[in-house]
């Protein structure tokens, strides 16, 4: 058995996709293939540190390259039949001839009331552009398979290819007044129907993921919430803990219930 055998494939420990034997990074999500994922005792696993210059293929021939370590940026090379969507304020540079199109993403009142950008842009190839989140952290690349849907906390979405569907999901009730974060009023949902897609998130600080079994539940700080599978449900709970003067109890947590994955970030905790 040699690594030149085309039947031998390396399996990515992060997204389970296979790459050519001998590859140093997963061709689907960019995770390094030369190490086992780090699991904490409690079952969280750190998202893979995507190395500088890692290239990821998607669509019909487009490429995505991760550049930088402190505030990583994503350089996109779009094939003529591919497109990418992103929020307008994430743009870093673009080629002169690459046109941008504004996508309609729902009522303006929804986005004005939340902290979310009103403008989702779409760029169609051929051409190159780069996007960056503008905060120190790391990238989380999530392949989205047909039938799969991922809910993303506000402010964490960086880019997704155009085969993914997109909706803005309003959270139940008046959660904003309960959550100590000023963000988190809405989630962005990305889903794949017929074709697999690619979703790129930016985690402030470090990102961790935990897979919950059916019915398994967990309390997560709302400000640390990064993403979840659509199959994961959640409620908001007021903790019976005094956090202020006069016995004020102001600590709220998200109770997330499996099955599915939950992602958190370490750098966005409220002051």
């Amino acid at each position: 058995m040699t690594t030149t055998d085309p039947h031998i494939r390396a399996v990515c420990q992060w997204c389970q996709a296979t790459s050519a034997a001998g590859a140093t990074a997963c061709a689907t999500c960019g995770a390094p293939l030369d190490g086992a994922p780090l699991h904490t005792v409690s079952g969280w696993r750190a998202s893979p540190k995507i190395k500088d210059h890692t290239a990821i293929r998607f669509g019909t021939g487009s490429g995505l390259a991760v550049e930088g370590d402190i505030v990583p940026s994503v350089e996109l090379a779009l094939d003529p039949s591919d497109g990418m969507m992103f929020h307008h304020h994430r743009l870093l540079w673009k080629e002169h001839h690459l046109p941008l199109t504004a996508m309609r993403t729902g009522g303006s009142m929804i986005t004005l009331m939340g902290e979310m950008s009103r403008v989702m842009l779409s760029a169609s190839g051929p051409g190159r552009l780069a996007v960056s989140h503008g905060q120190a952290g790391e990238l989380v690349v999530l392949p989205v398979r047909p039938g799969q849907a991922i809910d993303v906390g506000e402010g964490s979405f960086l880019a997704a290819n155009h085969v993914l569907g997109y909706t803005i999901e309003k959270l139940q009730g008046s959660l904003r007044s309960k959550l100590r974060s000023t963000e988190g009023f809405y989630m962005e949902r990305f889903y794949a129907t017929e074709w697999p897609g690619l979703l790129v998130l930016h985690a402030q600080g470090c990102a961790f993921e935990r897979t919950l079994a059916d019915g398994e539940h967990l309390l997560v700080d709302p400000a640390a919430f990064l993403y979840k599978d659509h199959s994961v449900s959640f409620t908001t709970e007021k903790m019976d803990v005094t956090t202020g003067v006069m016995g004020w109890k102001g600590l709220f947590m998200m109770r997330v219930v499996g099955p599915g994955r939950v992602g958190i970030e370490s750098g966005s905790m409220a002051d």
Partner: protein
Amino acid sequence: MSLVTACGWCGTTFDPGAQPSCPRCGAPAGQAIESTHGGWIETPALAAHTIIQMGRSSARIEGAQNPVLFCSLADGDQMSFGHRNLLWLDPTVRMDSVKTASSWAAIATEVPWRQIVATGPGELGLAAGRAGELGVLPMDPGAAVVARPPALLAAAVGLGLGLVPAPISYWEQDDDTTVQRFPMGRYLVRLAASSAPSVAFVVARGDLNVRRLGIDEPLLVHPASVAWYDESVRWRGSVELLRGRSAAFPLGGLASFGSLSLGSRSWTGPGAVLWAEAFGPGRVAVSTAAFPASMPTVRQRFQIDKRVTSEIAWD
């Protein structure tokens, strides 16, 4: 016989057996300069303990995410920097200050009113106080670069510093008031080497990427992310009208400042992206996180769309 190598970043020749990194810019010896497919070059990642030689003086770089510059100044050698960047200094170092901006400019912008000038002998430590990549800019005689003031960490002796107005601004009219906006900042710092080679130290917000532009080669970048550029680079502002969001421009397109004519009030909704358009020749360095600047926010952009479109006067 000694072997010498040419630094892939700045072209300086040095003996890699004697020094692990380029003495002028700190790029590790033997490290190929990698560019992205889009033509961007990442500033070389400086190894810990990298030493930059500045004549008889030197600077040592420590730390990666929040780098610190440990300067060892020879007797009579000078280094200038903003007072907010000073971490510590030896009592033997003499300190003075020179006026670099009018008090009005200092109030109106982030430019320090006076620049500290430290004179050796002795050591001092400088830091930007934020997460960001440190870039070393060797300057040959006659060379000049323009930097965003928050990006400039320090300049060695021999560099002339002066403020220049930002090349891009626009007017935003809101009911009775008219405000001039500066998406690249109000003033920039021009660094010019006079008769001797010198060096400047810049700190990005996040990572620092550089693009070399050919003659008249255009490039669209986020205005607030520009960290520094060669003085030979020319700039103009551009507004990209998004496809499908403008009755006046149904196919979208790019309109440059000065030639923009937006007379139609039927242009509603979020419909434009503001760009800084660079033209070569020269280098443009961009931070992956934006510097503070007067950029339209989403809601300001909404105002622009709704009310100010036809009243915007572009420089």
